[in-house]
C-alpha cells in the first residue's frame, strides 16, 4: 500500500482503548456522578468482565508445557461473551453492593478497593483457572481476515467499539433523563429527603451499582477482545481505578459527554507518553512514564480544589 498504515493503526489503538476507558468512566459516572456511590473497585469489575469474556470466547486450550491452561475455552461467539461478561460483572456488583452500599462514602471506597485487590490476588495466583501471570492469549478479533491484515483489523475494532460507545451513550442519556435517573440524582443530593418522598433508596442504589458494574464488565470484554490478551498484574491494578476517577473528574461528574471527553484526554496523555518514549534518551525512558502518573496526580489535586465540576459542568435543571 502506498500510504503508511502503521501510524493509522497506532491512532486506531489509541481510539479504541480510549473507548474502553470511556465505558469504564460512564459506568463510574453513573455510580458516582449520578448517585453518589464512590466505587474504588472499578478495576475489579473490569477484571471480571475481561476474564469472563476470555473464558467464553477462547477456543479450548489444554494445559501444556509452560502453560498451566485456564478455565473454559467454550469458543462462543463474541456477542455472547459480551452478554456473559455484563451479567457476571453486574451480578458480582450487586453482591458487593448488598452489604456495602449503605455504608458512608469512605467505607464504601475502602471496601470496594479491598474487593478489587483480593480479586487481583486470586487472578494472579489461581493458575489452574486464570493461567496466572502468563495470562490468557489468543482471543480472536471480531472479523478474521485472510491473509491477516493489521490495518483492517484495527479499523474493524475501532468501528465496533465506536458503535458500542454510541449505543451506550444514547441509552444512558435516555436512562439519566428518565424518572429513574431523576431519583438517582435526588439520592445523590439528599438521600433523607428522597426517602421521605417514599422512595426505597437502597433498591435504587443496588440497581445503579449493578448497572455500573455491568458497564465495567462490558468494558472488560471490549478490552480483552481489542487487546487479544488478558493478564492480571498490570491491566487491573488500582492505577486503572484512579485513572478512571481522573477521567470523570476532568470531564465533569454527572455528565455523560464529560466522561467520554475525560477518557480521551487522560488516556491521550498516557498514549503520548508511550509515543514519546521513542524520542527521549535511554536513561529517561522510564521517567517519562512515571512523570505521566505524577501529572495525573497533580491534575487530581488541582481539579478537585479549583474546578470540582470538571471541564463540562453538569446541566442545571430548573423546575418549571
Amino acid at each position, binding site marked *: 500500500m502506498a500510504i503508511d498504515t502503521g501510524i493509522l493503526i497506532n491512532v486506531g489503538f489509541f481510539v479504541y482503548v480510549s473507548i474502553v476507558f470511556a465505558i469504564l468512566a460512564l459506568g463510574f459516572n453513573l455510580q*458516582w456522578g449520578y448517585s453518589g456511590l*464512590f466505587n474504588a473497585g472499578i478495576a475489579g469489575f473490569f477484571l471480571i468482565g475481561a476474564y469472563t469474556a476470555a473464558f467464553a470466547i477462547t477456543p479450548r486450550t489444554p494445559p501444556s508445557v509452560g502453560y498451566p491452561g485456564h478455565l473454559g475455552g467454550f469458543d462462543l461467539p463474541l456477542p455472547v461473551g459480551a452478554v456473559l461478561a455484563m451479567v457476571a460483572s453486574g451480578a458480582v456488583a450487586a453482591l458487593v453492593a*448488598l*452489604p*456495602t452500599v*449503605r*455504608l*458512608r*462514602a*469512605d*467505607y464504601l*471506597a*475502602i*471496601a470496594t*478497593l*479491598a*474487593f478489587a*485487590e*483480593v480479586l487481583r*490476588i*486470586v487472578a*494472579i*495466583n*489461581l*493458575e*489452574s483457572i486464570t493461567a496466572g501471570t502468563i495470562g490468557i492469549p489468543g482471543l480472536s478479533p471480531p472479523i478474521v481476515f485472510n491473509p491477516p491484515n493489521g490495518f483492517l483489523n484495527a479499523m474493524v475494532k475501532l468501528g465496533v467499539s465506536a458503535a458500542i460507545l454510541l449505543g451506550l451513550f444514547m441509552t444512558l442519556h435516555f436512562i439519566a433523563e428518565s424518572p429513574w435517573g431523576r431519583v438517582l440524582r435526588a439520592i445523590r443530593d439528599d438521600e433523607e429527603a428522597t*426517602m421521605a418522598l*417514599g422512595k*426505597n433508596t*437502597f433498591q435504587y442504589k443496588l440497581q445503579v451499582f449493578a448497572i455500573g458494574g455491568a458497564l465495567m464488565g462490558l468494558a472488560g470484554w471490549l478490552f480483552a477482545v481489542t487487546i487479544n490478551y488478558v493478564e492480571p498484574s498490570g491491566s487491573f491494578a*488500582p492505577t486503572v481505578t*484512579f485513572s478512571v*476517577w481522573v477521567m470523570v*473528574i476532568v470531564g465533569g461528574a454527572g455528565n455523560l459527554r464529560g466522561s467520554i471527553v475525560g477518557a480521551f484526554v487522560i488516556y491521550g496523555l498516557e498514549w503520548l507518553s508511550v509515543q514519546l518514549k521513542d524520542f527521549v534518551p535511554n536513561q529517561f525512558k*522510564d*521517567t517519562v512514564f*512515571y*512523570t505521566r*502518573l*505524577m501529572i*495525573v*496526580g*497533580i*491534575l*487530581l*489535586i488541582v481539579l*478537585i*480544589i479549583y474546578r*470540582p465540576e470538571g471541564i463540562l459542568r453538569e446541566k442545571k435543571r430548573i423546575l418549571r
Partner: protein
Amino acid sequence: MSPLSQENLSSEAALGSRWREAFRPTPRVRRLFFRGLLTVAIFVGFFASLATLFGIAILQYAIAGLRVSSIVIVAAIGLTLIYGIRGFANFAYGDLMTLGAYIALLVNLNAALSIFWGALVSFLVLAVVGILLELLIFARLEGRGPVAPIVASVGVGLIIQNGIRAIGTTQQWLFQVPAIQEIPIVPGLGFHWIRDATTLVVGFAFMISVHVLLTYTNLGKAMRATADNLELAKATGIDTKRVTYAAWAVSCSFASTAGILLGLIGVIRPTMGFEVLLLVFAAVIVGGIGSPYGAVLGGLVIGFSQEMSVPVLVWLGRPDVIGLEHSTAYKVAIPFIVMIAVLIFRPWGIAGRPPAFARRVFLVEKLSEAIGRRIRFAPRTEGEEGG
C-alpha cells in the same frame, strides 16, 4: 516535719501503714494494672495453648503476627488520628510510609549514619510534610464531604510514589544495618534481634507515647475533643486549626516510623507502602475509626489473622487436601475478609461506640426480622412496615 518524724519514731507499725497509705493504688491504677495483667495472661495463654496443640514451631507464625501487628499498629494509630480529626480516609498514607523509609535510607546510605539517625531525620521531615499537606491541599477541601479529600489524597499518593520511581528508580534497597544472625530456639523457630525485637519495642513505645499524649497533655486532650465534636471544641476555645496541624505532624511522623520498620523486615521499594495501605485501613476499620485504642486492637486482629492463617493455608495447599496452588499468597486476603465481616455486623468497629441511631445492616436486619416473625406470634400491626 517534726510531728511526722516523732510519730514515725514512736511506732514501727504506724510507719508501715503510712507508707502503704501513700502508695496505695487508686482504683483507676488498680483497674489499669489488672487490665494489663489480663492482656498479658491472654497473650501467654494463647501462645502456650498454640504451642501445646500444634508443637512449638507454630510460634514462628505467632512471632510473625506480632511483628506485622506492631508495624500495622504504628501506622494505624497515625492514620486513625487524621481520620478522626479531619474525617476522611487518607489514601496517601501508604506512600507517606514509603517516603519516610526512603528519607531514612538516604541518610543511612549517604551520610553513613546509623538507621536511628535516619529514623529521626525522617520523623521530623515527615512532620513538616504533613503540615505542608494540610496547609497547601487539605485545608482548602474542608467541608466538602469525604470524597473530595480522598481524591486529593490519591493524587498526593500518585505524586509521591511516582516521584520516588522517577528519581530513585524501581530498584530495591536495604538499610545498612549490622548483620545479625537469627538466634535459633528450636528447629523451625528463631528470633532475630532487628526484625523481631526492634519492631516490637518500637511499636510498644509508640503505643505508650500516644497514650501519654492523648491522656496527659493539653494538646492530646484538645485532639480528642476536636475529633469528638469540632463545633463544640471550637466553642470551648480550642484552636482547632493548630490542633489539626499538630495531628497531621504526628500522623505523618508515625507513617515515617512505620515505613522504616517495614523496610527493616523486608526490602525498600516504591510500592512497599501502598501494598500495606489496605491492611492499615482494615486495622483502622476493625478497631473503629478515630480511636487510637481501637487501632491497637484492630492492628493485633489484622496482623494475627494474616500471619496465623499461613499454617492453615499451607495445609489447604497440600495436594491431598485441596491442592490450592500458591496457597500462602492468599494470606493478604484474610484481613479483608475480617474487615468485611466487621463492616457488615459492626460498622463502628469492635472497640468503637455505636451511634445513637445505628441502623442495622441489611443482612442482620433481614435475619432479625425473620427470627422476630418466628418468635412473635401476634400478627404485625400496620404502620410497622416502613416504606
